[in-house]
């Protein structure tokens, strides 16, 4: 195993982590501010990917598609929030789980209704189709580097938004005391809609960027959603910082596990067996890590106020 390969795998893990962060940030923000658990977050990821693929196919431009994905996911988020979600804030988690579970069914089948059953085509934009030469000589795909960059920028932007702007101040107020914020004269209904749409836009954005790498199809959001749950549980629900750390941790562990586990197992057994056994352990690895972290810190690494 060369060091160049190792560096490349670390970058891959980082890139997966960054994608997970975009998903997890929205989930954790929505939970932190509104106390809502949103299973349909993965559906908004799918909405973003479909919007981007469809618009890119119509206009021929990935970039217009990317903007469309943000707009579509944010708009869909706002509509869902106004029509349904806002009736759930005062309900217990059980009702929230069931309602958003129902939303997944509606979104998945609705998307198939509109776009048909065949996966859509979406490719990386030509401007980002090249490679970068890494120290050590191997090449790394520019688009994936760009994703890492975008993820870091979004993390920074979220930090600035929350710590420096009026909206951020209100979000922080909402996180620490929901009654208080009403007393401050903030229009809570609008704030909640904005936060939900922001979370949705982040998910849609992630969906669009990943859509260029993989298959844009119905149900694509569900595996990511569950990983994002693991991320925010590890990081501490409600904490953006926790989501960032958790996402990168999960990204790295998952990627390195898939890469290294079969090699570890091949010390003890034949190649074919090691490959299957290693892959089996690798697929469970992040859940095991999560169990260990929670056994030590039940509220996650960066426990929020909740």
């Amino acid at each position, binding site marked *: 195993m060369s060091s160049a390969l190792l560096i490349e795998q670390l970058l891959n893990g980082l890139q997966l982590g960054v994608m997970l962060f975009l998903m997890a940030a929205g989930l954790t923000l929505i*939970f932190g501010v509104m106390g809502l*658990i949103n299973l349909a977050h993965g559906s908004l990821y799918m909405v973003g990917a479909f919007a981007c693929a469809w618009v890119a196919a119509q206009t021929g431009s990935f970039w217009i598609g990317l903007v469309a994905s943000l707009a579509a996911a944010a708009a869909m988020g706002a509509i869902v929030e106004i029509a*349904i979600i806002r*009736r*759930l804030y005062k*309900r217990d*988690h*059980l*009702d929230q*789980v*069931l*309602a958003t*579970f*129902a*939303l*997944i*069914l*509606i979104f*998945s*089948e*609705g998307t198939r*209704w509109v776009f048909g059953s065949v996966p859509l085509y979406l490719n990386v934009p030509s401007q980002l189709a090249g490679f970068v030469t890494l120290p050590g000589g191997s090449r790394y795909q520019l688009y994936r580097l760009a994703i890492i960059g975008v993820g870091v920028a979004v993390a920074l932007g979220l930090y600035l938004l929350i710590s420096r702007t009026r909206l951020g101040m209100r979000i922080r107020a909402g996180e620490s005391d929901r009654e208080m914020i009403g007393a401050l004269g903030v229009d809570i209904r609008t704030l909640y809609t904005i936060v939900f749409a922001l979370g949705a836009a982040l998910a849609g954005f992630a969906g669009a960027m990943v859509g260029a790498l993989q298959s844009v199809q119905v149900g694509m959001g569900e595996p990511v959603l*569950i990983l994002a*749950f*693991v991320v*925010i*549980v590890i990081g501490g*629900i409600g904490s953006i910082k926790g989501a960032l750390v958790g996402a990168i941790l999960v990204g790295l562990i998952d990627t390195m596990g898939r890469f290294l586990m079969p090699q570890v197992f091949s010390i003890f057994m034949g190649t074919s067996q090691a490959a*299957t056994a290693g*892959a*089996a352990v690798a*697929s*469970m690895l992040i*859940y*095991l890590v*999560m*169990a260990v972290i*929670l*056994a030590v810190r*039940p*509220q*996650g690494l960066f426990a929020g106020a*909740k």
Partner: protein
Amino acid sequence: MMSRETIVNIGLALILLAIPFIAMQVGSPFYVTLATRMAILALAAVGLNLVLGLGGLVSFGHAAFFGVGGYAAGILASHAFSMQPLDLGFASVAGTNSMLAIWLVAMLAAGLLALFIGAISLRTSGVYFIMITLAFAQMTYYFAISWPAYGGEDGLSIFVRNQFPGINTMVPLSFFLLCYGVLMSVLVLFALIARSRFGTALQAARQNDVRVASVGIAPFRIRLAAFVISGMITALAGALYADLNRFVSPSMLSWHMSGEFIVLIILGGVARLFGPVAGAMMFVMVEYLLGGMTDRWQFFLGLALLAVVLFARGGLIGFLAGKARHG
């Protein structure tokens, strides 16, 4: 005098019992299978209702126990079929096609798994608990998919339905009656637990766990015990489900399955004795009828569920029997 809820419960029990007999009369034997499915899913949800309804713990990972029960049936039956003993490393055990033995193994295995999952996840609460139970169930799901010995993703067929003393389980009506009998027995057990000291402590911990601790009862131990019992009941349902389908696969462990159990309980009425029964009867029927009408049935199922959450709180039992009362 019987309460209104008791009358509704008896009515539901009789309707479920009547479905297969009417089906046989009118020559639609498939409804026997459908009724069996209702009974088994209801049983799984009764298990979940113990922690979710009485204990207020929203487990989103009960598919793990359902699947363990199913695999216990599948694995033991396959070893009985192939006559190869099951090698556990430290001992080797003969397979079996006796349901009683299978149920015992299913419940023991699920009990141990629940002890492990519960010991970690019950240290948390609220939304953490929901997500952690979900993640643990996913872990078992991926394990089942990638573990090649028992079929992995392809699942495992049970070529001949397992045996129960004195009953020909291959006859659909007999198998239904067996499942119905198990369901009713477990419902009696559930009713007893709900009124017992243990059930009192469990329900009190849902309402106010600080209060429970301040009278000297540790909520964690009560909840853990409830979680284990709950997992065992759901595993029993899983073993029956494997026999109903004569097949087990990782899809029994999938998070959709866990979601479906929650749906059943909410449809029927949370913490109500017959809530899961009412929910399962309604859900299986709606799924079947919708599926017969349109390929887009999942869309309409979603809309229907959404309407129930938003506008019909209290579920079917709440609608029929009014608000719950506690002694």
